[in-house]
């Protein structure tokens, strides 16, 4: 009876349960950062990685697609970590950002978005060809998935790709966002990711909003608004270019 009542209370107050869950996870991660790495690996980087590991086991136990949020008890994590709260918090980070820095990097930031879409698309498309795909629609859809996991299915649906290829494109986008989430803080020192301008370029080249959001949080939270600013244009640009210009180029090249 005790357990049933507790479970019901936690499930009924989903977001509140999520606050406790994230709070405990953050505390544990900052403690690990301090004790195990002496602050070398940032606490939020550990927390995000732990979150992904937990999501893995959540998916393993439920067979669902929403990580730990598929467990009824922790369904609130799905709301707290969903697009609505994520975007709300991202917008809030703009408060106090340096408007001049954004204006200065505006042009190269915008350019990096277009270039980033084309680059990721090209890499994904070439990979698909290397794995034996020759159908322009499949190659385009997988290339689009390498941009983000939203551009992939949007492109695939527009072109009429098979559901297997669409699933593959989503997976490519997921792999990309997970690597960006975990990898950014480790490569940041080598690529000069330490100022607003390079953060805007980073957001524009990577484009995965969740990857960029987590990657910058783990690297330097002060850089979040600059990277998020450009990244939010990426998916839109990708959905514009991939099923149109980029598809025509792929078709011309493969035929």
């Amino acid at each position, binding site marked *: 009876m005790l357990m049933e009542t507790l479970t019901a209370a936690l499930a009924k107050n989903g977001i509140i349960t999520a606050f406790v*869950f*994230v709070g405990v*996870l953050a505390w544990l991660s900052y403690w690990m950062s301090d004790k195990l790495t002496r602050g070398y690996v940032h606490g939020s980087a550990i927390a*995000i990685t732990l979150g*992904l590991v*937990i*999501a893995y086991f959540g998916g393993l136990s439920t067979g669902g*697609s929403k*990580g730990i*949020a598929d467990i009824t008890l922790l369904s609130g*994590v799905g709301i*707290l*970590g969903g697009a609505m*709260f994520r975007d709300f*918090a*991202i*917008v*809030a980070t703009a*408060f*106090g950002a340096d*408007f001049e820095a*954004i204006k*200065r*990097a505006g042009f*190269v930031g915008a350019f990096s978005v277009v*270039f*980033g879409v084309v*680059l990721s698309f090209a*890499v*994904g498309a070439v*990979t*698909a060809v290397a794995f034996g795909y020759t159908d322009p629609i499949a190659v385009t859809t*997988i290339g689009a998935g*390498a*941009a983000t996991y939203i*551009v992939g299915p*949007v492109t695939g*649906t527009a072109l009429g790709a098979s559901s297997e290829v669409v699933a593959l494109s989503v*997976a*490519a986008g*997921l*792999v*990309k*966002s*997970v*690597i960006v*989430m975990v*990898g950014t803080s480790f490569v940041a020192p080598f*690529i*000069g990711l330490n*100022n607003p301008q390079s953060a805007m*370029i980073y957001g524009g*080249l*990577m484009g995965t909003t969740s990857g960029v959001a987590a990657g910058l*949080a783990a690297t330097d939270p002060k850089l979040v608004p600059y990277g*998020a600013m450009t990244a939010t*244009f990426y*998916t*839109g*640009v990708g959905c514009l270019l991939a099923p149109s210009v980029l598809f025509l180029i792929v078709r011309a090249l493969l035929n």
Partner: protein
Amino acid sequence: MVVYGVALLAFCMLFGTYLGDLIGTLIGVKANVGGVGIAMLMLLVLTNLSHRKFKLSPPTESGITFWSAMYIPIVIAMAAKQNVIAAVSSGWLAVAAGALAVIASFALIPVFSRLGREQPANDSEG
């Protein structure tokens, strides 16, 4: 009042999302184009304006800064709800396509940073 800050933030996000959806529809794309970016610019402009004319009171500011501080916890929750299984068990094509795209993009960040600094308009460090 704290709620003024929260409401201002919420208004910016809704307005940006609406504009982003409109842009998407106008150019015939089934996606939101830059909604969050537009909302961020709007918040920046509005709060900078009010700094000059009518300063935001500290409680109002805290309605915005609270959500800014909640950003990392929200990102942690976001990580915990990702479809990691699908990413890990999707076969080598998806892994290769995703990983190579990231590596290529990372490699170009220093190149673009240099490009940005060489622009005539950018005389100071970005």
